[in-house]
């Protein structure tokens, strides 16, 4: 019997005919008619006008007919909310039908109808079905609670369904448990309160159900296990013991979820032998993923990428399984290549290079390029292999395949940055291929090489001159590089380049409308005009070596992604909040998460001096301990206690705190430097990152010792951010008669989770009338308490031995803004779109300083609020788009409209975490009106 005949009625008057048939007394006629209606619905015809007629067929004992009518109602109830109510009676009746199949069907379907006046009537049947004697009905009802929550969370909470769901974790049927877990997990994700907490009590129930439920149920439970933080190493071990058998499951999703649990729990296991054994057990199942369907391979490879970053030992001996096969889909090949680079080491490099060389002769251009790039990255990653890598690249250049040659030149430039003065021998070969260069990046790379080694290339001036001829038609990247290289040549061999340097400076400063090029041209011009030797020292200074950090995600992001193994986040390598807009409870999870202070790792070659940010994290436990201790101190000053709840309007940003906080050219120029070595070469030893930098002087505010009851000590201090690190600068003056020692510091628990990295202050004893300056590194990884207002006054106490001094100090919000806040236009746009309108805020900020957007924006950039693009609208307005990112990876997107007429700057903002915005706007207003 074929259903296709139902699609064939296309004659006129069809709807009318269907109405007739639907009114038929005969059940089989009715069924045929409903099937035709469903067929029409399937091909996208609108049959909603038949709603009442189809509804009439609902009261039937024919299960098939009933299912079809339910399907119809599910699809069209939205269009007829008023008439959908007519179905309620039948639904309710069916929900108490003797046949459990029908009971479940009724509850399941009712939950899918997202019409308010239906959901109200769902509560009673649902309550009964949650306690139904048949497990099939109970498991369906459990999911239905999640459906109801999606439509009307208040109703679910007020009806006590969440408590029933939690009780269901102890259900005798493992499938009911699994569905209850799925529903609770989902609700917990969007709820503002924590409604699903795994404790030792229900942990065992979940582990028991894990062994007995279906493959899908196992996945729900495994995912939920990741929410639990084991209390001891033993507990973590025993959970892992129960989970490891799942690695043998035929379903790859079960396997990946098990690996997620193991990766998480391993962090809590102290016994290294156990960890090693677990790592060993994870390797074979991961490798097996590569013999599955290509889509699963892709997913597996994206996750393996994360796992290898976190625990390289897991797959260290498995290089060969990642070798590409001819018939692998391109998306699989690209991912394999990435992992091969990560696993490459001194021992296997020969083998790997042979493979890369093989790939570089394939036909797929992008794959070939990536293979060539891979060789370069290996050269930079593995010192001892650089020679071999260079040799392979030279071999490839002799193939004369245009894009291979260009890609090779680009990576050789990077190799020169890593190993200066080591491989100039190859320059001759490179120069022989000048004519084949037509891509800007390759050209710019070649020009950089010529400029850098100008003293060793006899005909450097001729080569550069040949590029100079077409200067105006070149891409700006090439123009900038050409300018720099010619200046370098001039500094090294003045006679040869006298004329050229004049020409290029003229072209750059007078005939170009690219501001970057003009600016750079002027800088060189003035440098050269003022002092030739100084120019030499600056332009030809030694550059920091580069390292390969291309395949390394920032620690905090990596940890977050590891916790998201097998989800979309692990595929995109992006934290969920950047692409999911539906997570209402996001802010809770976002700020609760533990983060490292390490940051700022651009996914590009990063200068060495950027890597020495030390990671000073004190154990989480001790911090929490402090938090509790503080709360238990009722004798703590009432005054400070009330300060926590200060109204926002009370905030004062003591201007000295913010003034001078950062001086000099930190901000945008810095970002540019990281993007390509080109830009670095001209700033050389000048300002910015290259030179020795000292923290700016901070003006501290008197915070203790100003009031009559304050005795014994005078404290002043301020928070500051420098080079990506937050610190609290304190000055202590002992006004008592005795010497003080053993200073400790504690912070009150606060919204941002700010804690001192080390509670013990590094100063020794403080004699009477002596004063001392201390700089206290700050972590943002402490326990944050989300229920507190995000007010930014901090209450802090200093404890010299037994005595305590409580004081309050302003924490400037911009200290939380990281250096890697800039976005490119596209990401800005897509992020803006992805944030719901609801989160949009707008506020007018009167500008009381000189109304000059340029200087204001420059000042903002120095505070890590970065401009992306600016445009002029009419004569009176200038709109600037900006972005910044907080320590806990919340992006704040801004649109500042400067109106010259009114001297008002209108700020429209969007962020995923709107509750910090009031504070942010306050800070912004302050920053705008107090430029540095």
């Amino acid at each position, binding site marked *: 019997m074929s259903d296709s005949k139902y699609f064939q009625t296309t004659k006129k008057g069809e709807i009318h005919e269907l109405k007739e048939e639907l009114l038929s007394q005969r059940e089989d006629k009715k069924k045929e008619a409903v099937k035709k209606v469903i067929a029409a619905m399937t091909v996208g015809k609108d049959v909603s006008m038949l709603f009442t007629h189809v509804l009439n067929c609902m009261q039937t004992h024919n299960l098939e007919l009933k299912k079809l009518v339910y399907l119809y109602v599910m699809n069209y109830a939205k269009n007829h909310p008023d008439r959908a109510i007519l179905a309620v009676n039948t639904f309710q009746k069916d929900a108490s039908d003797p046949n459990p199949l029908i009971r479940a069907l009724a509850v399941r379907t009712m939950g899918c109808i997202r019409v308010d006046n239906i959901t109200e009537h769902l509560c009673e049947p649902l309550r009964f079905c949650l306690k139904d004697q048949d497990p099939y009905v109970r498991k369906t009802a459990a999911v239905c609670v999640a459906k109801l929550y999606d439509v009307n969370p208040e109703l679910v909470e007020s009806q006590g369904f969440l408590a029933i769901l939690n009780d269901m974790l102890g259900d005798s049927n493992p499938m009911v448990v699994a569905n209850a877990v799925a529903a609770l997990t989902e609700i917990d994700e969007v709820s503002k309160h924590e409604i699903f907490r795994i404790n030792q009590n229900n942990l065992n129930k979940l582990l028991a159900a894990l062994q007995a439920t279906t493959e899908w149920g196992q996945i729900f439970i495994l995912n939920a296990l990741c929410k639990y933080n084991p209390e001891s190493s033993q507990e973590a071990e025993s959970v892992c013991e129960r989970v490891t058998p799942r690695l043998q499951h*035929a379903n790859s999703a079960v396997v990946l979820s098990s690996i997620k649990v193991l990766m998480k729990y391993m962090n809590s296991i102290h016994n290294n032998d156990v960890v090693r054994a677990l790592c060993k057990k994870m390797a074979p199942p991961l490798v097996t993923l590569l013999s599955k369907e290509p889509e*699963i391979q892709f997913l597996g490879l994206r996750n393996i990428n994360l796992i290898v970053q976190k625990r390289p030992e897991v797959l260290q001996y498995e290089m060969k399984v990642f070798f590409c096969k001819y018939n692998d889909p391109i998306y699989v090949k690209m991912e394999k290549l990435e992992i091969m680079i990560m696993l490459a080491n001194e021992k296997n490099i020969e083998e790997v290079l042979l493979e890369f060389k093989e790939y570089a002769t394939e036909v797929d251009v992008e794959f070939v390029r990536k293979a060539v790039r891979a060789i370069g990255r290996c050269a930079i990653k593995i010192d001892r292999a650089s020679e071999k890598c260079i040799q392979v690249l030279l071999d490839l250049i002799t193939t004369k395949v245009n894009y291979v040659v260009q890609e090779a030149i680009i990576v050789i430039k990077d190799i020169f940055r890593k190993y200066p003065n080591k491989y100039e021998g190859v320059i001759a070969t490179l120069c022989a291929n000048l004519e084949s260069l037509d891509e800007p990046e390759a050209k710019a790379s070649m020009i950089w090489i010529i400029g850098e080694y100008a003293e060793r290339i006899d005909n450097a001036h001729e080569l550069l001159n040949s590029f100079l001829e077409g200067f105006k038609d070149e891409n700006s990247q090439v123009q900038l590089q050409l300018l720099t290289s010619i200046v370098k040549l001039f500094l090294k061999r003045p006679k040869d380049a006298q004329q050229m340097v004049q020409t290029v400076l003229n072209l750059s400063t007078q005939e170009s409308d690219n501001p970057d090029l003009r600016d750079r041209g002027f800088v060189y011009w003035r440098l050269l005009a003022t002092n030739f030797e100084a120019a030499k020292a600056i332009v030809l200074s030694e550059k920091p070596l580069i390292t390969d950090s291309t395949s390394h995600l920032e620690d905090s992001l990596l940890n977050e992604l590891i916790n998201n193994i097998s989800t979309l986040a692990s595929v995109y390598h992006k934290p969920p909040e950047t692409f999911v807009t539906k997570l209402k409870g996001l802010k809770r999870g976002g700020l609760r998460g533990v983060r490292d202070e390490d940051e700022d790792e651009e996914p590009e070659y990063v200068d060495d001096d950027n890597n020495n940010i030390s990671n000073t994290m004190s154990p989480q436990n001790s911090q929490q301990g402090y938090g509790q201790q503080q709360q238990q101190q009722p004798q703590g000053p009432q005054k400070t206690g009330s300060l926590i709840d200060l109204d926002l309007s009370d905030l004062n940003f003591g201007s000295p705190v913010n003034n001078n906080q950062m001086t000099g050219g930190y901000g945008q120029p810095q970002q540019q430097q990281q993007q390509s070595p080109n830009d670095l070469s001209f700033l050389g030893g000048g300002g910015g990152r290259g030179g020795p930098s000292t923290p700016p002087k901070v003006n501290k505010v008197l915070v203790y010792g100003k009031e009559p009851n304050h005795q014994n000590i005078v404290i002043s201090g301020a928070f500051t951010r420098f080079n990506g690190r937050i610190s609290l600068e304190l000055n202590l003056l002992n006004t008592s008669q005795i010497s003080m020692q053993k200073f400790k510091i504690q912070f009150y628990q606060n919204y941002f989770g700010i804690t001192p990295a080390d509670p013990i202050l590094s100063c020794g004893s403080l004699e009477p009338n002596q004063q001392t300056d201390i700089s206290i590194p700050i972590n943002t990884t402490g326990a944050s308490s989300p229920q507190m207002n995000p007010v930014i006054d901090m209450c802090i106490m200093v404890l010299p031995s037994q005595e305590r001094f409580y004081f309050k100090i302003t924490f400037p919000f911009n200290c939380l803004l990281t250096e890697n806040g800039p976005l490119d236009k596209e990401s800005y746009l897509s992020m803006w779109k992805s944030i719901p309108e609801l989160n949009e805020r707008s506020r007018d900020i009167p500008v009381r300083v000189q109304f000059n957007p340029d200087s204001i924006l420059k000042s903002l950039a120095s505070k890590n609020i970065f401009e992306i693009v600016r445009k002029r609208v009419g004569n009176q307005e200038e709109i600037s788009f900006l972005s910044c990112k907080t320590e806990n990876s919340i992006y704040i997107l801004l649109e500042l409209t400067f109106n010259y007429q009114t001297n008002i700057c209108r700020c429209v903002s969007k962020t995923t975490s709107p509750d910090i915005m009031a504070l942010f706007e306050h800070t912004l207003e302050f920053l705008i009106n107090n430029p540095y």
Partner: protein
Amino acid sequence: MAASAIFLLDSKGKVLISRNYRGDVPMSVASKFVNKILEEEDLNLKPIIQEDGVSYIYVKYNNLYLLATTERNANAATILLFLYKMIEVFNEYFKELEEESIRDNFVVIYELMDEMMDFGYPQSTEPKILQEYITQEGYKLDKVKPTIPVALTGAVSWRSEGIKYNKNEVFLDVVESINLLVSSNGTVLRSEIVGAVKMKSKLSGMPELRLGLNDKILFENSVKTGAPKGKGVELEDVKFHQCVRLSKFENDRTISFIPPDGEFELMSYRLNTTVKPLIWIECISDSHAHSRVEYMVKAKSQFKGKSIANNVEIIVPVPSDADTPKFRCTVGTCRYAPEKDAIIWTIKQFPGGGKEFLMRAHFGLPSISDERPAVKPPIMVKFEIPYYTVSGIQVRYLKIIEKSGYQALPWVRYVCLSGDYQFRTA
């Protein structure tokens, strides 16, 4: 973590049938998906893509797209596996999932979609059990009201009670496929066995089965066997059907289970080998640009003398602009397959024990050719060797215990197949 909606689309991207599970993603997104996959370059076309806040997870099967959408941080692995499970279930129902069979069975497909996933969470996906209460001939059931199979929520969710056979039998097929990758200079880069134990059970009641293999790890843990060491096989990774008690396997390495009825894959395994590739190919090509190209291909069997490889196909790539083929071979037949740009050399029976065969081919080349770099597909080999496994794995026993106490006969067959068997060409 769940899917919002599932779509089945034809090769042009027209929606054949869909089911909206959560109502949070508009159904019009399907057309966006179509535009995306039709316009996007192959390179960026990954199986999981994101556009305007909606994630699309899809697999392609028989000119169909199975697509799931979500707006959340869904569990991508679960969704992908679920899509494959859908294919399996539909194939079980309609013999072959294709455009035609979807139109012919849309009512059942709606029912199955309703049963297999609820609110985006996968539920019951065991084809055997689903078939007990969701049937194509729904009208027959008017008299007997369908009820829920006990198995659906029972501890044994894959098997129903009350199955009856007059003759109780079990058939085991041990199938090994060999993946091989050899570099152009003749170095074996990878040699891997992916094996599977497939079972067809025709057993009454609720039988308890225990399977014994000569896996090394199994060996060392069972004290009684006393079999000589070193003879066992070391499997690197083993995966089991959900009927196998994994914790029991973890504890004492016994494979014990209550099988589903009918055919299923009991376990799969994977191991790397160091044995010589079963069929070795050497190919020398001599290309004279703009005039001709000549090939000399040597095939050698490297498996035991008693075994025979059947239906051997050696597929040798040739330039796409080659013409006027001429062949000579010592055994088998040669054919030029222009649609594959390859010579296919077929040998019906290839005896083991170091036998060598030769094939020579000659092609003309056009006097004008394009300058693009040549494609270099590998030489592929297909074969099957019955009664043989490379790993040496053996079924040592299959114990069948049922409370009625019947005797059942297990039958075991072994076969070795070529998997991805590739020799790169220079």
